[in-house]
Structures are given as C-alpha cells and as structure tokens.
C-alpha cells in the first residue's frame, strides 16, 4: 500500500514540476509590459493554480478516483486561463499594447508575425496564443499531478482514520506543501522568463528541470510515506 503511495507521489510531483515549465511566466518585467508572459513569478502562479486545483478536487471527494483527478486538472486550467485572459485584456485595453513576443518569429497557431509588433527595447507584451495554450497545458499537467498526490494520500489515510474532515485537512496540507516546494525548485531552473513550449529556452531547461523535480519528489515522497505511516499508526 505504501509503495503505491510512493509511486503516485513521485509521479504527481514530477508532473507538477514539468507543468511549471509549460506556463508562460514573465515575472516583474511583464508587469511593466516589457516582457511577454503572466505578470508574476512562476512560484506564485503555480501555488495559486495548485490551491485552486486541490479545492476543486476536494469537492469531488468520495467519487471515483479518475473524477477527482480530472476535477483537479480542470480547476487548475480554469484558474490559469482566467488569469491569462484578464492579463491580456489589461494589456490590450488598459496599457494599450498589442500582444506579441520576441522569443519566436511566428505564432504557429494563428500565423501572426510577432517581431513587427514588439515595442523597441522590450521582449514583448501580453500572452500570445501559443503561450496561452502552453499555459493551459501546463496547468493541466500540474492539476493532474496535484490531484494524483491528493487522491493517493486521501485513499491511504481514509482507509484507517475514521474522521473524514481530519483526513481531508491533513491531505490538503500535505499536497499544498508539495506545490510550494516543487514550484520554487522548478522556477529556480527556469531562471527568469519563459514563453511556453514553443520557446527556445524550453528545450534547454526541460531535462534538468524534470530530473531535479524527480530527485526532490523522491526525497519528499519518502518523508510523506513516513508521515502517512505515522498517522495511520497514531
């Protein structure tokens, strides 16, 4: 049983770590419209996405496991789409800049040229369509990972602890901590801004990112298995 938990936790946390790399993050420059991407740091947006995903997953407790996982993914994807959509609205109607990014020449989905619309001295502004899609994909991966960790800890604990509220509380605490650690480790790997999977930076960064998230998740899963073992035997 604990082995199953360990494997689920490792897969879940590695998925979160890979998902963070897909999210177009602009950091502080994006808040000043001098860089494309979501105008905040990668850890903050990932933690917000994780909290939303887990909240959606909690509402599906006692349903089949695949429903909980799908609910978590949809919650995260909705949160990130709303954030990116309103960020774009702010950029277009508030700041008054066209949406473009200098990290690629042509948007592969819409076919729009990017370089002509990028203001001089900046790296773009707003979130282009391909980055938007990449962000939704990354949030889906992160949501699947988070709710996978949630369901595995939940099913392990609810088998032996009777109080369902207590089980949900402890499971939420533990799966949120997973997001806090993995998101920051992945964003140290990204190091600044990234524009999703179509960015050139993505190819260099994804391998060490996945490897490091795997190592961290192995260590974290061992500690989590110890905590769950202790909680069952209290």
């Amino acid at each position, binding site marked *: 049983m604990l082995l199953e938990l360990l494997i689920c936790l490792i897969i879940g946390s590695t998925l979160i770590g890979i998902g963070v790399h897909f999210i177009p993050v602009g950091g502080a420059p994006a808040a000043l419209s001098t860089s494309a991407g979501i105008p905040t740091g990668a850890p903050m947006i990932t933690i917000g996405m994780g909290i939303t995903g887990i909240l959606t997953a909690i509402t599906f407790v006692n349903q089949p496991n695949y429903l909980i996982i799908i609910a978590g993914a949809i919650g995260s994807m909705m949160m990130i789409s709303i954030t990116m959509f309103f960020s774009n609205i702010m950029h277009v109607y508030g700041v008054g800049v066209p949406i473009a990014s200098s990290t690629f020449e042509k948007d592969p989905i819409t076919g729009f040229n990017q370089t002509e619309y990028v203001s001089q001295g900046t790296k773009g502004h707003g979130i282009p369509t391909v980055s938007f899609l990449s962000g939704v994909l990354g949030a889906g991966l992160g949501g699947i990972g988070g709710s996978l960790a949630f369901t595995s800890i939940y099913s392990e604990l609810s088998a032996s602890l009777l109080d369902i509220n207590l089980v949900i*509380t402890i499971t*939420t605490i533990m799966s949120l901590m997973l997001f806090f650690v993995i998101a920051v480790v992945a964003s140290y790997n990204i*190091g600044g801004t990234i524009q999703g999977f179509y960015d050139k930076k993505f190819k260099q960064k994804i391998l060490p990112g996945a490897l490091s998230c795997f190592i961290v998740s192995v260590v974290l899963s061992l500690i989590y298995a*110890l905590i769950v073992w202790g909680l069952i035997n209290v």
Partner: protein
Amino acid sequence: MSDDLIPNQILFLVSFFGGLLCIYLSNIPLMGGILSIAGISLATIFGINALRHVGKYSLGTGVPSIVYLLTAIGVIGYLLGIVLTINLNQPILFPIIAIISAIVLALIVSYICKYLFGIQVDILAKSFISISLASVLLIISMSTLISQTFIPQVIYENVIQNGMIILLMLMSVMVIQNPYNACMGPNEDQYRTLSLGLTNIFLMLIVLSLLCIFTSKYWILYLLLSIIGWIISFRKYIGYTKHQVASIKRYGLWPKDDKEI
C-alpha cells in the same frame, strides 16, 4: 546590503539556543506564553538576517519564493517531527527531529540548485539551512503559543487537526520575507530591516493572541503585550527610516548599475 551591525553568528547562537529553551519552557502556565513570544521574535529576527545575506544574489525568481520554499520545507519537517514523536512516545525529541529533517531537505535542495542548475552562490547551502531552521523554530514557537505546551499530541490536536498550520505557515512566510523585500535597495540597513521585522512580528502576534482565545485564559495579556510592542517598534522603525532618508539626501543620486544592491 550594508554590512552587519549585529554579527550573524551571534544572532544564530542566541536564536537557536534561546529559541529551543523558550520552546522547552513553554509548559509554564503564564510565563510559557511570554517565552513563546520571545521564541517567535528570536527565530524571525534570525530568519530575516539570513535572508538579507542570500537576498542580494539573483536566484532566478524574487525574494519571497526563497522563503516560500524553505517554510514549506520547515512545515514538512514539523509534520514529520510531530508524527514520529507521537509514535515513538518521546515528546522531548519533537523540535530536534523537526529541525534535523528540515535541514536535511534544505541541504538536498541547495545541492540540486548548485550542481544541476548551476547557481554559483557560495553561501547558498548555509543560507538555506539558516532560513529553514528559523522557519521551523518560528512555526514551533507559534504552535507552543497557541497550545501552551510543546507536547506533540496537544499541538496535533490544536494546530494540525483544524488546519491552522496553513495559516501559521503563510503568516511566517510573510513575516520573514516582508522586511527585506520592503527595505532592499542600495541604502539597506540592518537596524532598519530588523526593526521593520519586529513591527511585523508584533502585528502578527495581535492575530495570534486572538487565536489563543480558546486555549489560553491569558490571551488578553498577550494581546496587550503585542499592541504595546507594535507601537514601540513602529516608532523605532519610523525613526530609522527618517535617519536613512537624510543619509540618501547627502549621498546624492542612485548608483549607475544595480550590481551592488
């Protein structure tokens, strides 16, 4: 960052041993809560000073994310400490196990940053360990203030079962990261940052002492203490800020490149 006026080693020694002592003495009825408040202040001051050292390097994301990472690591260590000591029936070992597991996790993450990501900062491992140590001590002191004892079983019932640990975690993140993030710049000064830290601690203690209503009958005393402390430290912070403003006027314009910040 300017040089340390109070050396980091002294802050480490005082807050580590003083904090542990405050945690172990928190069983005493009235003094225990006040000692917990002292433990909270010591741990936070040490965390802020450790953050001042690592915060001047660019690690790829902002300053708050360092504290988010290390406080989450601290909470995981804290959970492990509580669960293991309840199982082993050794309440006295609880802070030690929490600190050791948090330090091991922080060390692993810092080695990953160094060898896989190539972040070449010499003090990375040391700072990560310091901040995670401070966050563990801070969260344990907060829980001893709420549950009026350091026995893990009582803390488990009062802090973890009702989910208050998430609130404590977010409060400790805010209280450690805010002062340096607010004061950083070419004219950052240890006294000013730490006095803002004290202000934040007492502001947080106002909330914490309200959370103690159900567990302690002395909550009104803690509330009064924190309000008085907040007024004193805020006046102190305003004084240091005015002093610094004067020195900026004398220095002239801002530096041409921001490498020295």
